[in-house]
């Protein structure tokens, strides 16, 4: 389908140490263009560290990394221009309106005035938010904020979007609507790199990696992982890996 054979993220022997503590212990993996890649692991397994490095926020201790076609050591600004990021906390400004948030992020990503007004208009139409254009973020429902935060992270048409626990705390219907957006983005060719604590969501991913104690303990399609661990759900796969360390 939309997943191509081209690798958009290449990680070889990524090591990140904090003093004597090894947060990422020789991670090696590739993510394909247009793939929904689930990045799972227990609290403290080293996921956040790896994501910060992939986004060009931290340098690794060692290892070869290429993100969106750019070298993570020498072309960090290029990396940042070609990725989007949405955190759990949504990172929208509560005291700015819907439109002001879009304009602000458009400006940060270096879009021209004309591009910002065009894209924000089509974005608000697509999300059914046109009527809420001048409402403050703090006054709109959580489900809207979440969709807006995702779309803002996609405003500059990034090649990869990183989603860090994007569905925490939302109701089950909104959670599914959000995964619809993710699915559409991936089918449009954007690579989606996502973390979640909802194990049923990991089954919506093309492939899933599970980190345990700084290492990748398993990486495959959800189907194959369930087969490999003789488990009926991804929850069982996860528990076996995280408990059996």
């Amino acid at each position: 389908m939309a997943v191509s054979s081209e690798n958009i993220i290449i990680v070889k022997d990524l090591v990140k140490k904090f003093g004597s503590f090894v947060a990422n212990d020789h991670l090696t993996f590739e993510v394909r263009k247009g793939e929904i890649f689930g990045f799972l692991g227990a609290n403290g397994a080293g996921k956040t560290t790896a994501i910060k490095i992939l986004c060009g926020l931290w340098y690794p201790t060692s290892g070869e990394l290429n993100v969106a076609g750019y070298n993570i050591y020498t072309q960090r600004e290029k990396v940042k221009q070609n990725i989007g990021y949405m955190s759990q906390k949504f990172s929208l400004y509560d005291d700015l309106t819907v439109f002001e948030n879009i304009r602000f992020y458009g400006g940060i990503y270096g879009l021209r005035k004309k591009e910002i007004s065009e894209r924000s208009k089509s974005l608000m139409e697509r999300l059914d938010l046109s009527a809420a254009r001048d409402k403050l973020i703090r006054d709109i429902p959580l489900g809207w904020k979440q969709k807006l935060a995702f779309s803002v992270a996609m405003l500059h048409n990034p090649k990869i979007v990183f989603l860090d626990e994007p569905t925490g705390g939302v109701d089950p219907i909104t959670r599914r609507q959000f995964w619809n957006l993710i699915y559409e983005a991936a089918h449009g060719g954007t690579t989606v790199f996502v973390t979640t604590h909802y194990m049923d969501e990991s089954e919506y991913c093309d492939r899933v990696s599970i980190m345990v104690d700084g290492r990748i303990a398993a990486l495959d399609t959800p189907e194959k992982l369930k087969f490999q661990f003789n488990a009926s759900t991804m929850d069982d796969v996860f528990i076996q890996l995280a408990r059996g360390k």
Partner: protein
Amino acid sequence: MDPVAVSVKNLTLRYKTTLAIDDISFEVAGGELFGFIGPDGAGKTSLFRILTTLLVPTQGACQVEGLDVVKDYRQIRNICGYMPGKFSLYQDLTVEENLSFFATIFGTTIAENYDLIKDIYAQIEPFKKRKAGKLSGGMKQKLALSCALIHKPQILFLDEPTTGVDAVSRREFWEMLKRLRDGGITILVSTPYMDEAEKCDRVALMQAGKIMKINTPAEIIKDYPHALLSVRAGDVYPLMKELMKYPGTHRADTFGQSVHLSFKKGEIQPAELQKHLSTKGHTNVEIEEITASIEDCFMDLMTIN
């Protein structure tokens, strides 16, 4: 059944223009493990803050162990333990200092009630000299529970103790709660995770300040009004879109790699559906009759309310 531990009648809470809690009533019996299941904005935190006497209701009567939450707030504070949703221990104190601080304000000592917390605290005791801010998520959660228990409360209020916690730690946490409940403590716990409902004796399903349903998980599932099929066929999204258009469909929701299809009994025949999906080009179609999960029930109630 034991006497009533918590009684709430026609409770309403209004913040300026928002109705956070909209006329809810329920009772929790002594010794129950009672769950409030719902997303952010359902009113779970506001409810807990009222019952722990930290917020005054706009309207309605609430009693905890027969005491009024407004008039008798001092007595209530002595008999309840509260674990707020935000980690609220002192990050710059050590594990042991935090615990001993909470013991001291309630006029007790760690030694006096050690038996009660032993199971939980023993797991973090090796790190007792570590600052609370330096603990992992699972360890913070265990310390917060120990602090909420150290004065031997009759009743525990745990506000989203498992949010943002990984699947393994979540499972362990629920095992700890069951042991506490078996020891006789009444526990009120809130969670946004639908699958945790089945770990409770009874649950209230909440949405937008209202209680949509209260019962045992088994009874809630029994009340699910539709027939339900689990359908699988390769790629889940095209399948879901196809099923939404299928005549007779009430809801079609993704659950991992399968789609739960709900409909009025008799309106959809699995064999016909199988044939239809094959003609539409779906391969490896598997259809199975299933019982509803709490999440199916919750979504159905959301669409009614």
